[in-house]
């Protein structure tokens, strides 16, 4: 089921295919929020997320003729924003300075006062790891799909997810005593 249904979607898409700007704006208004959310969860900065969102809707306007109604409209648009976000990560070439990420983390104390919340911990993850966590655990992409989008293997996606969860567990102070 489409989590972001659009009223009169068929008609809006048909008009957008003919270049009707009002229809493209209707698509923008309907999906602006979820598109930005995916972009922001993957990209490092607000500016990147805003830019990726714009590029996503430009691509939607350019490629709407290719959308044949197979699968949900949101699924189609989400694939575009996910791909654009990953491209942005590659373009920016944020260095995966894992040691830095480790070092800037507050150390957990016995009383747990310096534990991070999930939002902050997610933000601290290396870019690729964060993208894999979001695409797999929240958006529901498979490891094979993520690997393909990233130009990597399925195993790469799996190992990134495992390392990310190990970090989250540690940073959130949730390691179970053995």
């Amino acid at each position, binding site marked *: 089921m489409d989590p972001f249904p659009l009223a009169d979607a068929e008609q809006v898409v048909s008009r957008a295919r003919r270049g009707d700007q009002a229809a493209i704006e209707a698509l923008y208004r309907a999906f*602006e*929020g979820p598109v*930005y959310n995916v972009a922001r969860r993957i990209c490092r900065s607000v500016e990147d997320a805003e830019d990726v*969102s714009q590029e996503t809707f430009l691509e939607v306007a350019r490629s709407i003729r290719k959308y044949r109604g197979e699968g949900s409209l949101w699924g189609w648009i989400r694939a575009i924003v996910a791909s654009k976000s990953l491209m942005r990560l590659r373009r920016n070439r944020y260095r995966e300075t894992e040691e830095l990420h480790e070092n800037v983390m507050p150390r957990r104390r016995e009383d747990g006062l310096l534990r991070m919340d999930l939002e902050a911990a997610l933000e601290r993850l290396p870019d690729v790891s964060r993208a894999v966590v979001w695409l797999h655990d929240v958006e529901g992409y498979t490891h094979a799909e993520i690997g393909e989008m990233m130009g990597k293997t399925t195993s790469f996606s799996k190992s990134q997810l*495992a*390392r990310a*969860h190990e970090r989250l567990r540690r940073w959130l102070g949730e390691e*179970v005593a053995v």
Partner: protein
Amino acid sequence: MTHLTMDQLLELRDGLTEPGGAAARAHVAHCPHCQAELERLHQRVAQLKALPTLTPQRDGWAAVRSRLVKARHRRFAWGGAGGLALAASIALVLLLRSASPMPPSSSPTTQAELEAAMLESRLLEEALTQYAPERRVTDGYTARVAAELEDRISALDQELQVTQMAPAPDGDRALLELWRQRVGLMDALVNVHLTRASNVGL
């Protein structure tokens, strides 16, 4: 006791069947530590999905629309070049026809009118190219009207190409009608840019 790795726990959480999956499941059934880890991973997905939706700080539609209009102008610039090429190829056809010993498919008057319409269209296009609207600040209303006119001209160019490839029964009269329509639309487009849309009653 050796506990499951994070990879193995995630495989179990996601219901993936990997070699050794049965052994991992058997281990979890008897290991409170791994049971707790697995439960935490299930909860993590729920926690991630429950994070607040991040929303843009400002309305980005104006920026998207502006980039769409610019892209349309770029496309139209190519379409304009295509229109010139189209005019040149039709002129060549007319020239060959007039040089041919075969009787022309239309009267000399129609042919002269056709050439005049094509020339007028080309002059208007050159005037627009010199004005270079894509390098000027355009208000939203003007941009919208111009975009509509450009769309109609693009559609008309396609129709012209089809008519040229498969001539209509009434010979060059159909071509002439289409070229006159093109001149009218080009004229309106030039006016929109030169005088702004509000002054041309569109």
